[in-house]
């Protein structure tokens, strides 16, 4: 359907992961897209969905508003290992080159995602190795 990246400005890795979820929820609410399935490679984000994790204070209010929206939209959140989340990972890396607080939306997949998207659409597994 489409992809987005955003440079969120000063943020820790944790805050950036939460910002991504907030961005998605606010967009979904704006477009009134119901039955949203969010998948993140951060367990902290998944835990925040059922308030099992402590939130950074800067994002607390926005997050709580988002939780109200999620309940209204019937959204769920699940975890995937980062090996399976390569497309979103590539987009987040790409967002690093954007100017501060700007975002970009692609309705057609950019060239650097094509092979990754093809891989996932075929259902080919990625391997998570523990050494």
């Amino acid at each position: 359907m489409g992809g987005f990246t955003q440079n969120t400005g000063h943020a820790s890795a944790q805050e950036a992961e939460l910002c991504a979820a907030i961005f998605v929820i606010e967009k979904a609410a704006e477009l009134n897209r119901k039955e949203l399935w969010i998948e993140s490679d951060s367990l902290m984000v998944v835990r925040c969905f059922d308030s099992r994790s402590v939130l950074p204070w800067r994002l607390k209010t926005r997050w709580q508003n988002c939780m109200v929206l999620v309940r209204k939209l019937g959204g769920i959140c699940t975890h995937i290992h980062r090996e399976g989340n390569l497309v979103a990972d590539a987009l987040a890396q790409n967002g690093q080159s954007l100017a501060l607080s700007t975002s970009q939306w692609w309705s057609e997949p950019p060239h650097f995602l094509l092979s990754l998207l093809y891989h996932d659409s075929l259902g080919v597994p990625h391997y998570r190795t523990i050494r």
Partner: protein
Amino acid sequence: MAEFKVTQFFNIPHRSSRLVSATEVRWLPPAAGRIKVNIDGSSFGPVSSGAIGGVF
């Protein structure tokens, strides 16, 4: 990884001292009518700027 799969296929016990285990991670498409979005955030730079990405 290809070698690992081959040894697994023929049930050859692998003796690599480094590889402890490998699991398959697969992206699953959503059921019809549901929208799936994969998200990720990253932090970078000396003052730790954040960037996010997601795919619908």
